[in-house]
C-alpha cells in the first residue's frame, strides 16, 4: 500500500493544468463590455461648467468693492437730483443765471418726508 506522503499528486496537478476551465464567449464579452463602459466614461468630454453673469459683471467693475462704490455713487446721484443741497442752487445760479429745477416742475410731487427731508 502506498503511503499518503508518497502519493503522486503531480499527475493531478498536471491534469488540472492541461484542462483549464474554458472561458466562454459570453464571459469574455461581459468583461469587454465593462472595459468599454469605463473607456467611454474616460473619453466623454468633460461637461462645461455653467458660468453665471454675476462674476462677469463683478469682474468688469473691479469686484465687490467696485460694485459697492458704483452703487453708492448711483444712489447719491439720485438723491442729489431729487433733493439738491442749497449750495448747489447758489453755484448753479451764479454760473447759469437760472435756479435749479424742482421735481414739482416736472409734475412730480414726492413726499419730502419719504426722502428724509422735513419741510
Amino acid at each position, binding site marked *: 500500500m502506498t503511503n499518503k506522503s508518497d502519493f503522486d499528486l503531480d499527475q493531478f496537478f498536471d*491534469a488540472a*493544468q492541461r484542462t483549464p476551465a*474554458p472561458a466562454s464567449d459570453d*464571459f*469574455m464579452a461581459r468583461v469587454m463590455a*465593462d*472595459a468599454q463602459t*469605463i*473607456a467611454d466614461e*474616460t473619453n466623454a468630454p468633460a461637461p462645461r461648467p455653467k458660468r453665471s453673469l454675476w462674476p462677469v459683471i463683478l469682474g468688469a467693475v473691479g469686484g465687490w468693492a467696485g460694485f459697492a462704490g458704483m452703487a453708492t455713487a448711483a444712489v447719491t446721484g439720485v438723491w442729489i437730483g431729487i433733493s439738491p443741497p442749497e449750495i448747489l442752487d447758489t453755484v448753479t445760479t451764479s454760473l447759469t443765471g437760472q435756479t435749479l429745477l424742482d421735481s414739482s416742475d416736472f409734475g412730480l410731487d414726492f413726499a419730502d418726508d419719504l426722502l428724509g427731508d422735513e419741510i
Partner: protein
Amino acid sequence: MPFDDQSTLTDDILIVRFANGDADAARVLTERHAPRTLGYAYRLVGDRAEAEDIAQDAMLRLWKIAPDWRPGEAQISTWLYRVVTNLCTDRLRKRRGVGLDEAPEIEDGAKSAEDQLQDQARAQALETALQQLPDRQRQAVVLRHIEGMRNPEIAAVMDLSVEAVESLTARGKRALAGILSGKREELGYENDK
C-alpha cells in the same frame, strides 16, 4: 508590428493606454488575463457561475484602477490573483452562512471518470478534493501547483510570509494526498505505473 497590433506590448503599457481611453488595449488585457483569472476563481469556489461573477468583478476593478496604476510596482497577474483570492474568501464565508444544503454541489469525481478522459477525471477529482481543504490551504496549493507561482509571489498575493506559504502548501498537499489516495483505483491511477 502593425500600427494597431498591441498583442506584443507589455501589461504596463496596455494598462496606461486603457487609462487614456484605448478600449483595444483592454481587449488584449482581457484575452491575456481573464481566462486565467476565471480558472483560478473556479478552483477556489468550485462553481462555474460564481467563478465567472468573481472573475468579471476582478477585471472590472482592474479597469477602474487603471488611471492610478503605477507601472513597475506590481504585476497585473499578481494583482488579479490577490483580488480574486479576497473575493473568493468573502464569497465562501457568506456561503457557509447560508447552510450546507444551499451550497452548490460539487460534481463527484468518480462519476466524471466514467464518461470523460482520464485527464479530465483527474482534474475533476482534484477540484473536488480541493474544495475539502481549508480556504488558505486551497489558495496556496492552487497558486503553487496549478498556477505555477513561486513562493515569494504567493506570499505577496496572500499577504503572508514565505514560511507560512510553505507550511500551508505542505499541509494542503498532505490533505489532498489523503483524500485522493482513496480514489486511486477509480481514477485509473494504478494503471499508469
